[in-house]
């Protein structure tokens, strides 16, 4: 057996913006949650359980953002998810009949029927509709470390011109975590890995030990960290920063030979929602008749061709196993090399969007399962670790100020600040200033005024979600993102004037509080 020389730390960032429309069933965007539950969250939970059952020792870290937690905890969305699953099961039943003449396709129809039926069973009977508790279980038994995030994924490098708005993002993020997990979080996933040193004092104030940054957050730090991203650094304010490892990131995400592009993997873009006969598929696509993904996809990537072969579950598993082996060998070599130069055993930090595992890279959760088994059973020179455990083992680290950075395209703020979305920022800044003004003018309010002030804080936070800016840049679902910004700024502004004029419309407040029902424990005084 090789001697253990270093560590690998997987951090999966689970996040979706808060999407909750009790007023309608027509919002396609709500299905992001349902797809993520079926394709990512349940598969991750299932694989964690399999590893535990098989006695495999593993460690993984996940950030679960406050809006995601709020949605997973929402009774209406839980009901809607069950409805979504039942529709999918009904569709796969029809598919079993429709594909009866084609053995390979029919096998896949059965596969989807079994998969979605199993999801329904797990969600209702095993998890009792409570996925937060399911994740918490793995934290409680010590294999998963859950960390928090900014309240609504507000992007700090742009919000910080009013530091109190960053403080509130952190405060509500920590508060939401405590509500669901019964303890304080040790780490935080900075929204979009957006780092500004001005946030450090608030991170410390709310008890955060560590953050995750993009690679150049560490490599461009001041002074230059002597161990690169192979060791965490601590900022002068006392916040520990772990930087993303570039080599492992490239292996997974290279557009040329990244793992998810394997020809045996499921093709994301071929979905019967787009391909099946319109009248047949109509009950299972958007209410307004627009074709959308259903989740039933029959093809594999096959190659750089339009002619896609059918998906083969076994072949896909074989590829995942091969790639897990490659990842293991690569990390072994990397750690063997780095360990010669570092004082403490090197840590390779591998942060990813959680939803990539399963939703985008369908076989991702299985790949992770196989990799973790290999790390445990095979002859390799590293162990899995969480950032907290690493800090506890090796608390001595270099003092340096991380570089202002993000994990968006080109590493800074272009994704969230460019000609397509720059008009938004003045509204966010004004609303942030006005919120502080309200907290200053009406300290310790009671009754209706307090409710209105707290709702103002919720509307501001929801408007600040970095997702709306990202979606506008990305060019898909733009109308929805723009509407959300208008709605939250609009609701905020209306309430702002009502509060100042002492003329709060109770019905209006009740209505928006029902729609934007995040953060029940919020206290607007955080803006003071």
């Amino acid at each position: 057996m090789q001697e253990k020389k270093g560590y690998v730390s997987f951090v999966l960032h689970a996040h979706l913006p808060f999407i909750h429309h009790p007023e309608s069933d027509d919002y396609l965007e709500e299905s992001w949650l349902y797809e993520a539950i079926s394709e990512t969250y349940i598969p991750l939970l299932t694989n964690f359980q399999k590893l535990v059952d098989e006695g495999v020792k593993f460690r993984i870290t996940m950030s679960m953002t406050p809006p995601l937690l709020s949605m997973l905890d929402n009774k209406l969305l839980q009901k809607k998810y069950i409805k979504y699953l039942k529709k999918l099961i009904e569709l796969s039943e029809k598919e079993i009949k429709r594909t009866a003449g084609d053995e390979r396709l029919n096998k896949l129809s059965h596969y989807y029927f079994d998969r979605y039926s199993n999801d329904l069973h797990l969600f209702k009977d095993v998890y009792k509709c409570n996925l937060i508790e399911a994740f918490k279980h793995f934290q409680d038994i010590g294999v998963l470390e859950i960390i928090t995030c900014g309240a609504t994924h507000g992007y700090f490098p742009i919000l910080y011109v009013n530091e109190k708005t960053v403080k509130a993002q952190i405060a509500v993020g920590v508060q939401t975590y405590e509500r669901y997990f019964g303890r304080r979080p040790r780490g935080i996933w900075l929204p979009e890995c957006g780092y500004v040193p001005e946030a450090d004092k608030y991170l410390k104030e709310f008890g955060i030990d560590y953050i995750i940054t993009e690679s150049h957050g560490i490599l461009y730090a001041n002074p230059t960290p002597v161990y690169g991203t192979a060791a965490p650094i601590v900022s002068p304010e006392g916040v520990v920063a772990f930087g993303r490892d570039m080599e492992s990131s490239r292996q997974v995400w290279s557009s040329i030979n990244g793992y998810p592009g394997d020809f045996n993997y499921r093709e994301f873009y071929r979905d019967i929602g787009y391909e099946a006969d319109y009248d047949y598929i109509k009950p299972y696509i958007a209410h307004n008749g627009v074709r959308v993904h259903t989740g039933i996809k029959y093809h594999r990537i096959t190659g750089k061709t339009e002619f896609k072969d059918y998906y083969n579950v076994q072949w896909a598993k074989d590829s995942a196993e091969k790639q897990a082996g490659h990842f293991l060998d690569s990390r072994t070599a990397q750690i063997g090399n780095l360990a010669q130069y570092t004082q403490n055993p090197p840590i390779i930090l591998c942060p990813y969007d959680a939803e990539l595992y399963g939703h985008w890279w369908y076989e991702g959760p299985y790949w992770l399962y196989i990799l973790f088994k290999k790390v445990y059973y095979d002859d390799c020179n590293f162990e899995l670790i969480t950032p907290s455990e690493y800090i506890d083992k090796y608390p001595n680290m270099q003092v340096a100020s991380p570089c202002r950075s993000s994990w968006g395209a080109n590493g800074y703020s272009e994704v969230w600040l460019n000609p397509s979305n720059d008009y938004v920022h003045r509204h966010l800044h004004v609303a942030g200033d006005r919120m502080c003004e309200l907290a200053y003018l009406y300290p310790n309010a009671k009754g209706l005024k307090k409710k209105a002030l707290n709702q103002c804080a919720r509307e501001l936070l929801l408007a600040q979600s970095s997702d709306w800016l990202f979606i506008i840049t990305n060019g898909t679902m733009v109308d929805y993102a723009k509407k959300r910004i208008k709605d939250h700024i609009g609701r905020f502004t209306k309430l702002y004037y009502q509060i100042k004029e002492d003329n709060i419309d109770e019905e209006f407040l009740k209505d928006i509080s029902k729609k934007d029902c995040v953060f029940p424990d919020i206290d607007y005084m955080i803006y003071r």
Partner: protein
Amino acid sequence: MPRKTKEQTEIEKEENKRKSTKKATTANKKTTTKKAETKKAPAKKRTTAKTKTSATKKTATTKTKAGKASTTKKTTTKKSTSSKKTTTKKKPEIVEYYDLPYRYNQTIVKVLAQTPNTLFIYWDISDKDRKSFEEQYGENFFEKTKPVLIVRNDTLNYSFEVEINDFANSWYLHIADSKCDYKIELGRRPIKKTEKINVDYIYVSSSNEIEVPNDKVLFNKNQKMVYFRDIKTGIQTEKEITNISFIRNMGKIYDIYDLGENHNVSILSNPSSGSMYQ
């Protein structure tokens, strides 16, 4: 503290109007005949969002000035028939439609760093301040002067000026030096001096100060020591960086990152961000 402006008062008026009309919305079940002729699909297809906001909008009076296409409005009335079966027991929905205000009528200059070499600046001058400039420098003050941004690099202690125009309310600016503090000043220069405008430059307002990000590995050659801290005990220790094996090891580590001539790593575009919106 933000002042209440004409425009904001207008927004409020609109809001009050909406408030007063929202009670009338229940009475609107009559629109059934109109609904039958309207097509739902095209308007809905354009944006799920819009159709929803307007779903509750049932009377022309509830429309804001910014308004929405009448087709959308019609569409929505159709929806209300089918879904309003329940209205006998439910209260009317609250009418909501919002647009972002064009401006907040405050004198402001804000600067943000888009990249280590690009600043984004937005600004506005309040009506009150505009008036006081006109009072001081004459009615045609804004025609007789042109706006400029003065970019001050407070780290390297230099500044430069960029001419902008009165049609814009924001600007992207290239800057040469990363990892420096910048502050922007909005001012005006007379196109031609007049009796009333007998100065070279008129100050309008200043921005916040920001530090733009660093964009390279620093490798400070003058640095002799690095500091380590035990975060459990708080004990700080120092190491001499001039130690040969230390430098060699550091060099080996940074070799891995494939630094370019300017000590830049090739930043990996992260394909994972926002994966659910695909």
